[in-house]
């Protein structure tokens, strides 16, 4: 069930100069949250922000009734959201969208760039519970962008690339040696991040006939399937990213 809730800022922690984790408490919706879902957050007190903004969950805690988000401050709304103080109220609609598939006892690769790593902590945890072997590959411009590696290590082996070579292998995410290695025998690849990165991962997956799921970040006006603004062209026609996505099997996408 979708809910509209007024939640309380429990914590807002900047991780580096351009991203932060926003933790909200008081949610009755946690039991419905699945890895890949997102929320529509209303951003108040900004004269130029009219619509809500969609964010994937970073994590949630049923007992503490908290949900958290990893946000990259890229524009007016995300900057404004980053000025919230502990105790302030945030109005959110959630949980929204579909979720990643969770296989059992398979070997999977998670690839995330930028804010695209947000949905993968919850995914990693669930995948591990189901006995999957997990590799996590994250990419960024510099070492500053490589986040949550400690958390990811709880679920599997972590690899990374940076464009300046300051951490992990130097280059783009899809240039990582993992892709050329012999052990590239995954049953399923997950990807989320900039369009170019996701498409590159998808084309590798296709080439090797590996199943692949991508989480899209199309522009949204509503987030719950009524405005039809967020559509993605698929083999079955236009689909709503907010209700039929954000997770798509890449075979559906006309990439």
């Amino acid at each position, binding site marked *: 069930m979708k*809910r509209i809730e007024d939640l309380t800022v429990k914590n807002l922690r900047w991780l580096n100069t351009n991203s932060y984790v926003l933790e909200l408490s008081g949610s009755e919706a946690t039991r419905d949250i699945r890895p890949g879902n997102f929320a529509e957050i209303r951003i108040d007190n900004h004269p130029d922000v009219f619509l*809500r903004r969609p964010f994937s969950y970073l994590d949630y805690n049923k007992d503490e009734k908290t949900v958290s988000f990893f946000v990259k401050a890229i524009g007016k709304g995300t900057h404004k959201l980053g000025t919230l103080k502990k105790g302030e109220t945030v109005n959110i609609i959630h949980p929204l969208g579909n979720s990643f598939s969770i296989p059992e006892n398979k070997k999977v690769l998670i690839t995330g760039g930028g804010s695209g790593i947000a949905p993968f902590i919850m995914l990693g945890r669930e995948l591990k519970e189901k006995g999957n072997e997990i590799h996590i590959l994250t990419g960024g411009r510099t070492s500053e962008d490589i986040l949550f590696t400690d958390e990811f290590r709880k679920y599997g082996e972590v690899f990374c690339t940076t464009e300046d070579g300051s951490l992990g292998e130097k280059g783009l995410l899809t240039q990582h040696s993992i892709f050329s290695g012999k052990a590239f025998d995954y049953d399923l690849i997950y990807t989320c991040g900039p369009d170019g990165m996701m498409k590159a991962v998808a084309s590798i997956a296709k080439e090797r006939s590996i199943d692949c799921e991508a989480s899209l970040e*199309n522009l949204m006006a509503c987030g719950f399937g009524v*405005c*039809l603004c967020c559509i993605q062209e698929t083999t079955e026609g236009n689909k709503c990213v907010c209700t039929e996505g954000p997770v798509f099997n890449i075979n559906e996408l006309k990439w």
Partner: protein
Amino acid sequence: MVDLSTKIHELELKNPVCTASGTFGYGEEFADFFDPGLLGSIFIKGLTLKNRAGNPYPRMSETASGMLNAVGLQNKGIDHFIENIYPRIKEFDTHIIANVNGSTVEEYVELTERINELDHIPAIELNISCPNVKEGGMAFGVSCPSAVAVTEAVREVYDKTLIVKLSPNVTDIAEMALAVEGAGADSISLVNTFLGMAIDAETRKPLLSTITGGLSGPSIKPIALRMVWQVYKAVNIPVFGMGGIMNATDAIEFLLAGSSAVQVGTACFIDPQIPIKIIQGIEDYMERHGVKEVRELVGGLID
């Protein structure tokens, strides 16, 4: 207890708060947020005869106090609606009103005939004002002769309540309203979106795949309100006013300007419960001002 009921031709509305076509899906999408049966009526997403994919992505751009959309009437066509959606929503405890679109007069007529067969749809809203389709749509709504032609043709085959939705992209809205009244409309709804445009200065590209799109939200409210007032003064049929209604005060302003009922659009994206809050807010206002029947407010502007 105040009386919120209002009447549009033969349509009795339990209250004057309706939801605008294209912003409320088929109503079911809001069932988690409130009971859609509480509304005055629901104007469902625009229908066409055949499946329409709509326009390419991107279709949306946020603007100052508003948004542009270029959806382009995406819907799966009337057959799909009748088979798959209508059965699920027909038992809502309110009126379901179909928003009818065509690219020729014949298409409007044929679609109307199909909808006419559906017992639980007591009214149609003839959309001659969609700015987001290449053929038909707004083209019908910006010239009197074509607006008259499509209204007359549809009137011919439709005996239930016929609402004609006007485009605000015209020089003289009152003239358009008079024309469609003369052509047999039972009611007029306005405004549809204003044709607008947004550009990304960094990439130098338009922000919508179609370059131009329809502007909605509070930014258009002052113009929409003026048009409703002009139309109210010009015609003798009831008016559904809309355009940027975000709260009960906005809705009351539209009633005072001459709307018999209002439609809430873009606001539903930001606060899906807003229609219910507006009903409550109108009730509070009436109690505070000693207004017994909401109908007293309609056209109640003291000018």
